[in-house]
């Protein structure tokens, strides 16, 4: 088959449509929003939902000891954890929907919720 391309009109069209699709995909799937509520899960159950705009400290006594969750200025974090590794504390503040902090030894996790629930890999 001989190449008879005289213009790249069709190609330009394909590239243009692809570009539009990519921009659209980024806007749709990489849409992060600031959350408004933090859900605290403790020992496999929902301990409660707390507004992120009300500064608060929540103390939970679990198997390992005391975990302290701090809510301040629209963000949440683990202020203190009883475990050795301190992974949850070191991850710092979270504020976007779908973000999550977990303390496995003490069975505490917090998750930021918004108007719509964002995808996360933990539900899988």
């Amino acid at each position, binding site marked *: *088959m*001989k*190449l*008879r*391309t*005289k*213009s*790249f*009109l*069709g*190609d330009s*069209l*394909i*590239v243009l449509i*692809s*570009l539009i*699709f*990519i921009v659209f*995909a*980024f806007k749709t*799937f*990489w849409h992060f929003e600031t959350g408004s509520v933090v859900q605290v899960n403790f020992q496999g159950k929902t301990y409660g939902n707390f507004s992120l705009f009300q500064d608060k400290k929540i103390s939970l006594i679990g198997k390992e000891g005391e975990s302290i969750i701090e809510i301040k200025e629209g963000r949440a974090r683990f202020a203190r954890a009883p475990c050795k590794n301190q992974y949850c504390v070191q991850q710092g503040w979270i504020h976007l929907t779908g973000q999550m902090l977990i303390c496995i030894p003490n069975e505490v996790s917090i998750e930021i919720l918004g108007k719509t629930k964002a*995808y*996360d*890999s933990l*539900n*899988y």
Partner: protein
Amino acid sequence: MTRSIIKIKTTLLDHQIAKLSAIAIGLSLIESVLPSPMPGVKPGIANIITLYAMYRFNFKIAMWVGILRVFATSLILGQFLSPTFMLSLTGSVLSLLTLYFAIKLPSKFFSPIGLSVLSSFAHIGGQLFLVRIWLIPHASIYYLIPIYSAAALLFGFINGWITYRLLKHHNSI
């Protein structure tokens, strides 16, 4: 004891397929040792050969080259029938299917560049679909669509451009 010689009759077409497949397999192997920023984000340079085969010869040869390449590469790398192989096969079959229809587009307006972009989108589209229904049946993989589409456009364009240059070099436009 007499030695029996088994001779397989080969046609010129078979030799052409074998030659092109060998190049495609070589390119795939080179690519497999290159570091990748993310699993699945690969240039797919072997597709240059598939596309080249389709323009230079016909779709049938391109199909043979595309499918043989997947089987041979996976056998060499020890991935035969593994998820990697299944993904590779799905991608190749879908991109070949796309090429089958795309080659019917008027060649006055559509060069190998456009066809390469289309086939790389079909490739990644099929793979993401397989990942979604089989490997990671969760909506979180939608996060990856923008990255994979951007990679498909970039590498599809580059591969198409290389094919175009190759054809221009070997052929007349």
